[in-house]
């Protein structure tokens, strides 16, 4: 069975390490905050100027001056720090964020990322995605493997890029893969998903090691 959005977030959360400063993109990546493994502490960075994002506020705690990059009301946890936009992106560009989890429309075997623009559709803008793609030293892309049977893991991205050669790891609803040496390398498969299915839904060059364990959530 393909993973649900929640299960993808759960698997992605296993990448978190104690003491990590982490930036979560919009969509499924945002859900990762709900699955921080017990016994570790991480700080979430919001590019509009906060590190140490806390839980959503209760109705009484709502503060219009405290939002995340998705414009949702949030809280600040103990240990949080507030800063300006230019400093926030200095953190990103300067490689200070330990882990960045982003969504994508397409990725390819060169590690290229397309996530911001579909020609012919309204272009809303890239927000901070290009800065994260260029600046992050450690990016995990979380995305749907194929939509309507059409693979999103390609030999070459068809959409305008967000960043070039920036992705080394991809988690989809079917598999966990590395990108290296011009190929996707299948590392884990979602519970109950066959290697055949992953193969048939991966357009980009795919390397299948002898052993491909089932994912632990």
């Amino acid at each position: 069975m393909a993973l649900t959005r929640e299960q993808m977030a759960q698997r992605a959360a296993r990448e978190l390490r104690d003491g990590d400063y982490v930036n979560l993109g919009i969509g499924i990546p945002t859900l990762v905050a709900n699955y921080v493994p017990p016994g570790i502490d991480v700080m979430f960075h919001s590019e509009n100027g906060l590190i140490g994002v806390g839980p959503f506020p209760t109705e009484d705690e709502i503060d219009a001056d405290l939002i995340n990059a998705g414009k949702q009301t949030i809280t600040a946890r103990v240990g949080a720090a507030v800063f300006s936009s230019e400093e926030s992106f200095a953190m990103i560009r300067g490689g200070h964020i330990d882990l960045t989890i982003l969504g994508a429309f397409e990725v390819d075997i060169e590690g290229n990322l397309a996530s911001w623009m579909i020609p012919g559709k309204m272009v809303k803008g890239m927000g901070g995605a290009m800065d994260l793609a260029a600046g992050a030293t450690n990016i995990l892309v979380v995305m749907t493997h194929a939509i309507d049977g059409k693979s999103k893991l390609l030999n070459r991205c068809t959409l305008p890029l967000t960043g070039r050669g920036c992705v080394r790891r991809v988690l989809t609803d079917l598999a966990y893969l590395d990108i290296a040496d011009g190929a996707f390398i299948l590392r884990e498969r979602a519970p109950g998903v066959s290697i055949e299915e992953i193969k048939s839904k991966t357009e980009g060059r795919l390397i299948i090691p002898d052993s491909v364990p089932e994912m632990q959530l």
Partner: protein
Amino acid sequence: MAGFDKRVNSLEEALQGLTDNMTIIVGGFGLCGIPENLIAQIARMGVKGLTVVSNNCGVDDFGLGLLLHKRQIKKMIASYVGENATFERQLLSGELEVELVPQGTLAERIRAGGAGIPAFYTATGYGTPVAEGKEVRAFCGRNYILERAITGDFALIKGWKADWYGNIVYRYTARNFNPAVATAGRITVAEVEEIVEPGQLDPNEIHTPGIYVDRLIQGTFEKRIERRTTRPS
């Protein structure tokens, strides 16, 4: 004191000299930390042909969306404009010109403008449509693109507290672009929630020093929330 007293008495006075075809840089992220009364005053003034530099463009009936609605904006320089249906309509009809800039590049272009740096190299956008027509240069084996600084005729910011000198403190994520924007205007106008007597702000805790601020006005704020998200109490 008088020479350093930045307070003005009205929104009219705060925006005196703002005329058609000027470039204005506006602080805020979404609707958080926007100089909402200054923006509303520009809508009332009716100046046209503006180039507006701001991370977003408000929503249809609030913030910079008000200026769009009255067709006062000729060109928008922003990183994300997805919250605004008027924007889409004017863009598709060719009434509005738009330059989409990665958010960190936008912040740094404004910062550079205020700091006297005419241009800088960044890896952000290399190999993407953002790089088209821009100089590329390699440093230590990595490619970077040249981005130019932004300055404005007016810079409009929103702070939490200020003293008469224009020293400003921001609150939480309402800080966002405001400190950089404050530095990049030929005339910088700050709108704040509270103006306090000299000596009431701790010099150790000033975010924007008054040297950047030309005019200061106190406002009352709606502080509209774009996505009210809560957990059960």
